[in-house]
């Protein structure tokens, strides 16, 4: 191992082959998760604005910026290709003194050779070998197996809530820094054993980056709808089992072509019998441009929701959700009536 000490916390800005960090005995910490699971995430965002970040910067970037100012993290692996250009600018120009930035790229061409090179670079940094990483992959795959079971129970058995589904998937970026402890949390979800949700509930797929709404799922449930597919978060959990680490990170759709994402979405929409999509876009995020692409490519109805500050759904967003739910319910009712007659 290099000069890194075991248990040192390594910041990550998005999903990376986290097996490498675990192989080095260091602890990966997803900066997004530190920010959003804080008791007062909006205070963190406000602080970034006070420190001078432009108001029209996305909330996630602001959150990560403040987190970096205050934690004991001295090394950050930032995804510089295949994720977010805004984060790259922030890491390049505004990193606090004493914090080292290691760039990692998912090559857009999905080239094995380039990805291998990128991964090797991180391994060299941590002084670990491929075999070490495969061992940690086996350790993480144990946890991923449970996550995928939870995901399947969400859409097939209908016995897991959207909230729990999201929790399981989203924390797979860093395994909460402790895969075994995370596994215990996941088992708790498995053990909950709730009654299946009614068949009448509408089934939505949530596309796009994670939302900053704190009450989206309970609100949807109160309207008779559920999210049974989290597009991006599910990808974080590496749904395609692959024996080798390289393959796994090539089948991860999010950092590569938009059309790869679309294909994945179409397949899952059929499998999970979705009624519609909610495309979540973050204010000031470049992914907003993809909204038009989704509308052109996907045949199911799409509701686009935009969020800025962390907090509860505002009245206007609720109106959109209500209308979407009521519209789809009445469409469905009509279809069923027509079928019966």
């Amino acid at each position: 191992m290099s000069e890194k000490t075991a248990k040192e916390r390594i910041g990550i800005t998005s999903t990376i082959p986290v097996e490498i960090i675990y192989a080095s005995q260091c602890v990966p910490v997803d900066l997004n998760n530190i920010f959003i699971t804080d008791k007062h995430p909006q205070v963190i965002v406000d602080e970034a604005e006070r420190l001078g970040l432009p108001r029209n910067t996305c909330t996630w970037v602001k959150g990560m910026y403040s987190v970096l100012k205050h934690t004991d993290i001295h090394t950050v692996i930032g995804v510089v290709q295949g994720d977010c250009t805004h984060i790259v600018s922030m890491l390049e120009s505004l990193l606090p003194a004493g914090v080292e930035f290691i760039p990692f790229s998912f090559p857009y061409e999905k080239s094995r050779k380039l990805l291998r090179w990128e991964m090797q670079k991180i391994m060299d940094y941590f002084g670990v070998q491929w075999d070490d990483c495969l061992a940690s992959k086996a350790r993480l795959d144990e946890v991923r197996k449970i996550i995928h079971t939870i995901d399947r129970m969400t859409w097939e058995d209908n016995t897991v809530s959207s909230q729990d589904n999201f929790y399981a998937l989203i924390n797979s970026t860093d395994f909460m820094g402790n895969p075994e402890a995370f596994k215990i949390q996941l088992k708790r979800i498995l053990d909950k054993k709730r009654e299946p949700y009614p068949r009448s509930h509408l089934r939505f797929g949530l596309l796009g980056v994670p939302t900053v709404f704190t009450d989206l799922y309970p609100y949807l449930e109160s309207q008779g709808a559920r999210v049974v597919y989290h597009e991006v978060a599910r990808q974080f959990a590496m749904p395609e089992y692959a024996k080798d680490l390289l393959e796994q990170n090539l089948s991860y759709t999010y950092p590569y072509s938009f059309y790869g994402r679309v294909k994945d979405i179409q397949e899952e929409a059929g499998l999970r019998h979705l009624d519609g999509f909610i495309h979540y876009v973050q204010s000031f995020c470049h992914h907003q441009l993809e909204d038009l692409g989704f509308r052109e490519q996907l045949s199911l109805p799409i509701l686009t929701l935009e969020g800025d500050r962390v907090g509860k759904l505002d009245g206007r967003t609720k109106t959109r959700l209500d209308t979407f739910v009521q519209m789809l319910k009445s469409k469905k009712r009509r279809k069923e009536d027509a079928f019966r007659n």
Partner: protein
Amino acid sequence: MRLGIDIGSRKVKFALQSDNNRMKLWDMPTTDLYHQHLHRKPDGTNELDFHSLGLPQVDIVAATGYGRNNVKLSQALVVSEILAHAAGAMRVLQGEFLMLDMGGQDTKVALVRDGQVEDFSVNDKCAAGSGRYLENMAQVLGVPLEELFSYYADPADLTTTCAVYAESEIIGKLAEGVTMPQLCAGVNYSTFLKIRPMLERWPQKELVFVGGGAKNKAMLHYLQQAHYAVVIPEAPEYNGVLGCLEMLDKEEEE
């Protein structure tokens, strides 16, 4: 006797339908409703005070509008305002058409097909182009709103998209000698440019124009110029509340 209530950001609109199908329409400031005509119940919901509203006991209440969720009327069937407006528009047009509602705070478009909302869009989180924006602009220009609505020719080029900054842009243009009618037309035209992409999402040219904004003659002119066949119902600002009652009918049928 049935009551429809559309709780807007500024005004509440009422439609009272008597048993012999006579309809009475009226409005009041939203703040009056909050202060004078609601009983707060321990469970956090509210009850309409029919007595203080000067109404007899009403059997059924349907509520829509921006405030419908905040007010939480315990007696009411709650309907999304987009669906209510679409139902209102279906009173005047059948088949496939677009419903355009320009209200105080936002603009909504719905694609209606065979009595059903197929898709919809609401403008982004921005006041430019809303009814409130037009009112502000009329004030800055020192003309009544109805007069602002009458100018469409030779619109001044307004480039600011922010409702607040547009004020200073207008004042600057006045100082440059741009005429008041051109500026009024400019305000209307920039509003039209904001809503046009919402309409063009669907290739439909039949259009029902509702909400307070439907009184904007300049907007009607621009819509027609863009080849929309526009129908405006009587009392377009009551379209939402009337649609809300229509939805009660449907609900009862089912």
